[in-house]
């Protein structure tokens, strides 16, 4: 992979596998990637040891313990950045509150 890998794409792949091992096609579909991009990212994750083939050899891919830790790291980091309590300007916070109130039935 020569271009900069995207944290969200890595996160989506790890998140798709967090519920359990998957075959390549369902994993690709859940991550919402085209085949070329999917293959590039899968190679990267395999090389980094974040995912691996299941020991049964049924072609499924699973998170390694390092992959689980990486998923937690990304998910918690993103949750911290995008949580409603994250620091933001007063106007933006007011807008979040207004949006939440507007959506409330």
């Amino acid at each position: 992979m020569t271009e900069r890998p995207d944290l969200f794409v890595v996160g989506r792949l790890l998140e798709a596998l967090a519920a359990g091992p998957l075959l390549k096609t369902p994993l690709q579909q859940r991550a919402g990637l085209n085949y070329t991009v999917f293959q590039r990212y899968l190679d990267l994750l395999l090389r980094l040891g974040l995912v691996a083939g299941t020991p049964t050899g049924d072609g499924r891919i699973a998170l390694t313990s390092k992959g689980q830790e990486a998923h937690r790291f990304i998910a918690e980091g993103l949750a911290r950045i995008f949580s409603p309590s994250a620091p933001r300007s007063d106007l933006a916070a007011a807008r979040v509150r207004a949006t939440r109130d507007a959506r409330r039935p």
Partner: protein
Amino acid sequence: MTGPSESRAAASVAAAQAQLQEVDDRVTRHAQRSRRFSTFAWAFLFAVALGDAALSLIDLYVSVVTTTTGAAGTSTSSMPPEWGPFVAFAPAVALLGLAVREVVLGRRGTPARRRGTGPADAPAAEETTPWIESIRRAQELLARAGRDAEWSFVPLALGLLSLGQIIAGVAGAYALAASLPVAFLAVAGAAAVASLAVLWPLYRGAKQWLEADQALLERESRELGELEAEFFWRFVGTGPTP
């Protein structure tokens, strides 16, 4: 395989991406509104100029000629018909209304809907635009929207003042013909100034929303950059490019 912390983190990536998308959608809408606001503002200025020309033509071709006979003799005066100013400036007023509508809609901050119809945890389409590009694009859109809003106030102010001046002139002519008090002249000018006074806070509000989104994007960009750098440092052992 799925521990409590894992479940807590589940779907956070998709949710975060949905939020980023939401900001992107909102910024796109802001930019579209600012662009439309700008278009209507300039169109309003041109419509005022065209309205002035149209009023002159109406005065030239369908003016109402009044002949007054007094002690000094007979005098003849011509004035545009009463419907003249209304017809001539109706497009300008409609365009002004459309411009104000754009600012009001932008100020209201209607929540943006997600693109696609799938649930938040299943991307409906391929989403391969890197977040950094997505944020950069949104920042560029915001900067353009800010410039649009900034420059739109000039034609609006010029148009309103010209319109006020023209209407005051026309109203003055009618007032003199009907022997109404000269104070009547001030009504049209005051209306133009009042419109400007209403527009100013709307414009300031729109600018504040844009600035708030700019600040939000800057924070998200900085924190995502830090998170990405830390991720690569911890799990790859190198910088962001493996």
